[in-house]
């Protein structure tokens, strides 16, 4: 491994530039090669650069959850194991979004089904309540998580990626492996659903 990493450092930078994937800079490509060769420093650099992104995305997708630490580790472990298969056809960030989406796909669907009855009960109780207005940031944040949790998982994924993570429709279609038209449709439906939920909440 050491020899391989060493040999990588001797690769001509011109050659690297010529062969670097479009979405990666020469430095990122170099780091990717080192990570593939098993250089722990390169793995640590990738982790350092992207762990805030992955954790924040999970937090926005799942809400405050005790499993976020565990899921962050799973995402990076899967990413590091899949480094050999990563061809650089997308940025590392987008690729990690894809792994995060695949990792959380079943989990958020299971939870959505499990919580559906609870949500229905909550809706019923809220309809009996007087008007509720979020008065402080903590309450507002809880309210936001509550509303997000009520959206269907496929719509929630698109909404979070578009509005919170700032990805374009094209990028989201790559992350979720769906046509752009499907993503656009899901986004519109997510917005409408949120509007209805908010209208019902106040």
């Amino acid at each position: 491994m050491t020899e391989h990493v060493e040999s990588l450092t001797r690769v001509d930078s011109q050659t690297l530039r010529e062969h670097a994937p479009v979405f990666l800079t020469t430095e990122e490509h170099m780091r990717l090669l080192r990570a593939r060769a098993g250089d722990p420093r390169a793995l640590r650099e990738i982790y350092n650069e992207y762990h805030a992104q992955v954790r924040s995305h999970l937090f926005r997708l799942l809400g405050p959850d005790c499993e976020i630490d565990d899921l962050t580790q799973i995402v990076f472990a899967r990413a590091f194991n899949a480094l050999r298969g990563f061809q650089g056809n997308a940025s590392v960030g987008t690729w990690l979004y894809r792994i995060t989406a695949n990792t959380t796909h079943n989990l958020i669907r299971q939870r959505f089904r499990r919580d559906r009855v609870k949500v229905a009960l909550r809706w019923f109780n809220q309809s009996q309540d007087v008007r509720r207005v979020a008065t402080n940031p903590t309450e507002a944040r809880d309210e936001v998580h509550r509303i997000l949790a009520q959206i269907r998982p496929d719509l929630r994924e698109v909404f979070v990626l578009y509005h919170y993570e700032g990805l374009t429709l094209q990028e989201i279609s790559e992350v979720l492996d769906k046509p752009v038209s499907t993503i656009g449709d899901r986004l519109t439906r997510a917005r409408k659903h949120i509007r209805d939920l908010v209208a019902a909440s106040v």
Partner: protein
Amino acid sequence: MAQDELSARPRYGCQECQEDAELVMSQRATAQVTTLHADHLRRCVHCRNMQRLLGDVYQGPGHPSLPAGNREDREFHAVLRRMHHEREQPWQSRWTLRAGVGALAVSAAVLALTVARSLHPELHLGQTAENSTPVDIAEDAPAHVDDVPPESDIGDDTRFRHAAQAYGRVLGGSANVFPAGGAFPTNSNTFSVGTELQLDNGQTVQVGVIGRIVANFAPGSDVVWESASPSLVELRVERGMTAFRYDRESTDPVLQVRTPTALVRVVGTVFTVEVDEDHDTLVSVLRGQVDVIDLETNRTMAEVESGYRYDVAKATFDDVGKLEVQAALPLSVEVDGSADPLVVPAERIPISWNVPGLPTDPESRTLANVPTRPGSPTYVIAPIRVEGAKGSPSEPPSVPPEPEDTRAVEDEGDDLIDELMRDAAATHRKELKAALEQCRDLYESNETRYRAAKCFSDILAKYHDHPAASEAWALLGILRMDFALDYVAAEVALQNYLQRSPNGRLAEIAMYRMWLASVEDGRISQALQRGREYLGRYPNGRFVGKVIQRFPELKSEI
């Protein structure tokens, strides 16, 4: 008039307001819609509340708290462990599947055999065994072993990035250095993993490990270097007080200090570990934070922050005292990138160190002003001069004075002017010689050696181009390398020396040190090149053994 205006405006109720809410928030609505929307919000409390909540949803739930320091490090190592575990999973599942299939086949074979024997009692067991399924399974069994994926290099904790980096060096002072498995101390100043350093009561020593960690061992200490890998460097303190400075970068290995009763895990900090006569462990942190881990349960006993001293046996916290500060003071060189790290006022305690009771005024941050903890022992680490004792650096810490400059003055002017110039030059040389002598005094003692850098810097500022001052470049380079771990600055200083005195007395040391700087900084390709250059120029040099020790492939260069 007012009635006409109202009737001319389109109807804009709650339904329209809610439908336009997102357009207005994303600033995609027309000016007219924005005005109507704002007008409606002023009038309608319900829509105002909805708009506020919708704004919160579109703004997002914010950011979670991110792990930092030790937590971040722990998470990364958990990722590596999980990565290995997940990689092993397919092999296990395949093995389980094959074992299951094998068991089914065996069961089927036994069943078939039983049925066959009941139908054909004359059939012997030996005949059956030759052609039956169990034989096939047995032949197939080794295939399972072949299918085991090769051990991955990723996150391998047993190897360093390059073997040449897994060495330590005695920077100053003396100690009894016992190599791994050796019964007798060696004279080498370079040591590898497994080495034990024993200090008598009159000895102190400073060591550098893997080019990243600087440690100061107090008299009476006994320390063993246990392991070095890309993720972990571990030392074991059997007794005595040891101070560490580790300006760790995120990709550098974690430092662990093991004592008889605890494990101190460090991400990057300045701290001391003391094992007293009762084998009790005392951990004091001057900068950063360390985790103290129970050896038996492997759980964190305490997270010791800067300014605190933790007693493992009593599980109590106390303020850091004078003794700990004194032990760590030789490591007080700070590398913050903002200024020349070595040109620091003598015996000042860095501002980044958290010492309770010490003023923040830099002028007052001296050892004398550190409050003494009540009941603390009074033993003082006395400065000890290096006198070529066992384990002392093989490079001479004391450098004999440079011979006086013998260049002839080539002026053909008046004799008087010549004489005056010679007098002035002689005076200049005497001043320089005296200044160098003073700096060498500081350089010779391992307790004051780190302060010699300022002295040499002053000389170079005043006698920058004087040939006799070139020695200061070499010594300054060595100091930058040993104490500031600033390898780039060290190389510049050493190159300055080699340019001025390519055949000087310290040329060999300078070349060796440049090679060493490449190794310790992890630039292995450059280190190989410099190693070749050194061996080419000094095939019988003093440091040939050290170069070959780390790069055996260079033997052919001799």
